[in-house]
């Protein structure tokens, strides 16, 4: 009985140890990515097979784009706040509200246009095939949900 129990436990140990070992080995690259300073960029490098030079260029483009994006976000946040104040003090759509809505729409359009420019610039820094794949993926991610509102009045 002792020998049987020992073999039974040894088998279980081998199974569990192999499972953990294989799991750790196969997820090592992903765990390493999560420890990077910018995991999302590390993922981009892996997903689109970028060389170190291409990755450096794309990281530069990304770092240059983010402050501009942040500035536009701040403008939109300020416009939203102003709109909330106007909506709280007015019972009808005033000319001031109308002009603020137009201004806000303009900022949003500017924001989307800058984002698209960034996507194209990033895709050009990749090998042609990967750039094409990146563009198709990122455009679907960024603009796929914009159809929601239009679909509501489709019927």
């Amino acid at each position, binding site marked *: 009985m002792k020998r049987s129990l020992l073999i039974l436990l040894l088998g279980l140990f081998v199974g569990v140890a192999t499972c953990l070992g294989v799991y750790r080995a196969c997820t090592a690259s992903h765990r390493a990515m999560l420890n990077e300073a910018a995991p999302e960029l590390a*993922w981009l490098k892996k997903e689109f097979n970028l060389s170190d030079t291409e990755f450096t260029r794309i990281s530069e483009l990304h770092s240059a784009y983010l402050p501009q994006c942040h500035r536009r976000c701040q403008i939109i946040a300020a416009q939203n706040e102003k709109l909330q104040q106007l909506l709280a003090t007015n019972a009808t759509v005033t000319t001031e509200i109308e002009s603020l809505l137009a201004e806000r729409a303009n900022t949003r359009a500017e924001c989307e246009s800058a*984002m698209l420019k960034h996507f194209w610039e990033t895709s050009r820094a990749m090998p042609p095939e990967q750039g094409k794949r990146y563009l198709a993926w990122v455009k679907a991610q960024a603009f796929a949900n914009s159809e929601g509102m239009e679909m509501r009045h489709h019927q």
Partner: protein
Amino acid sequence: MEAKSGLKLWATLNAWIESALPRTRMALCYVTVQLFLGMTIGLWMARQQSSRLDTALGSRYVQSVDPYRTVDPNQ
């Protein structure tokens, strides 16, 4: 009645383990099966986790460049 049959099954299994496992060939077979089982489950779990992380990191990249992208509460 069910408890009795369960007990009988356990006794049979116990007797089989006691008689079969100490045989070298059977023990090797058992450990090999455990090894393959561990490998298969480990690979399956790793594939699931990698795919989850790929989706999450891809989403994180889009969120970093697209201010209109809402944060997925599942991530």
